């Protein structure tokens, strides 16, 4: 089973459709609504986690696109909270792209967000809660 976090952007005229109901009953996908702002008559946005087999998810996305719903991957950004960082270096061996690195003279850990591939390894590794994830509700 695959799980993916997506942002649905609804044009003004589709919001009346029971989209979530249709996704579940017609396409058999799991829909976990993480965030939603939907006002009838206005553009709506919903952040969801879709779960299901690859084929079910792709069919569900086809259905959404046929309604004119824009589907985008959820943009996520990792932040390094320098005031919480002790420079211990626990994150360094787990970072696959060396976005997190340490200067071995000053023992200061630096974070290069350009190199970050948002793999979340550092979130699991940092014991000081110095790494955080920001979800961009684009």
């Amino acid at each position, binding site marked *: 089973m695959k799980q993916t976090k997506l942002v649905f952007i609804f044009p003004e005229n589709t919001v009346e459709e029971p989209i979530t109901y249709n996704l579940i009953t017609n396409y058999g996908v799991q829909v976990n609504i993480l965030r939603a702002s939907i006002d009838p008559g206005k553009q709506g946005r919903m952040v969801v986690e879709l779960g299901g087999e690859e084929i079910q998810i792709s069919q569900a996305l086809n259905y959404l696109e046929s309604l004119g719903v824009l589907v985008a991957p959820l943009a996520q950004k990792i932040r390094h909270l320098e005031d919480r960082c*002790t420079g*211990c*270096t626990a994150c360094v061996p*787990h970072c696959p792209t060396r976005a997190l690195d*340490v200067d071995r003279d000053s023992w200061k850990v630096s974070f290069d967000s350009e190199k970050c591939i948002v793999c979340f390894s550092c979130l699991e590794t940092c*014991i*000081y809660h110095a790494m955080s994830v920001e979800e961009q509700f684009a």
Partner: protein
Amino acid sequence: MAKTIEEINAKIRSGKVVVFTAEEIVEVVREQGIKQAVREVDVVTTGTFSPMCSSGAFLNIKQQKQKMKLGGGFATLNGVPAYAGLAAADIYIGATAIPDGDPRNGNGRPGKFRYGGAHVIEELVAGNRVLLKGGAYGTDCYPAKTREQTIGLKDMNDAFLFNPRNCYQNYNVAVNLSDKPIYTYMGKLKPKLGNAYYCSAGQLSPLLNDPHFRTIGIGTRVFFCGAEGYVAWPGTQHNPSAPRLENGTPKTPAGTIALIGDMRQMSAQWLRAVSFTGYGVTLSVAVGVPIPIIDEDILRSVSVTDDQLKAPVVDYSEYYPFGQGEAKLGEVTYQELKSGSIRVKDQEVPTGSFSSYALARKVAHHLKQLIEDGDFLLTQFQAPLPGAVTGKEAA
């Protein structure tokens, strides 16, 4: 020419004391030589900032008008259980305690351990209040049966950290020989030697700078999370008989100290609650121990550098938890560990640490400053730690 603690304290009081950190002293000795430097230098400061699980706080909570006996009952602070098997108003909250509702490692997933005893301790030291819930059976002298109240350090008669085991003299380097990732108190270890974790400040670490406990003993005053703390006792599992290198430093985890200090003097800058994924909650504490340069032997000890300190590489998938499999994966120096990679079984293994060298350095410099400013006097210990070599036989 031996120097006494009294002579050093007199120099601290008169503002003439000469202090270096355990890092700086290396260059001083290289330039001046031992014989000159021993006359020049009075104190060398060490430091460490690292998770130390055997930590916790004794709290004595002020009674309300109608008194209550927590002893024999129960108490939680922000939902975290505290030990209530003492007198009416004394409780002990351990760093690793976790609330009942925490899923721990349930559902086959490594737990996040977001909040526990260490977090309660950090909040109290930071000046925040926590919710005390207490339950008791009620007696003629202590009639109250329940208590629910937010309390801070001001609502306590006493609050002191009493850590039964801190400042391990050296520690294992953890690796994983198995083919799946494991979550340990030494962090997440990737399969097949994917990474290695160490946890010591090496050349700045307090007990590695006085390997035979010649100046550190029961009653030694130390910098402890911002407070003036004391070595209260040998730490639990204190083992002076560990195998040693020629320079006297142990090759495996060896000595430990139990520390005590007033939480009211502490600062949240020097004490941090931490969460190890899949393992639990614990507390990182800052400790700095001043080492009086009483003779040439102790000066040689504090001049030790990372390339002269070795730690054992240990498999945490089989050998550590089950006592089976490959016992000896070799020894590496702290210089190698701090370079970012070591070689184990002919494989390049990237390293990381949980002990913060940046903060260890900060502790050592801070303690140096306190001593230079006349704000921290040294003490002669009242009794040696087991295994201490205090006489001439140290050479």
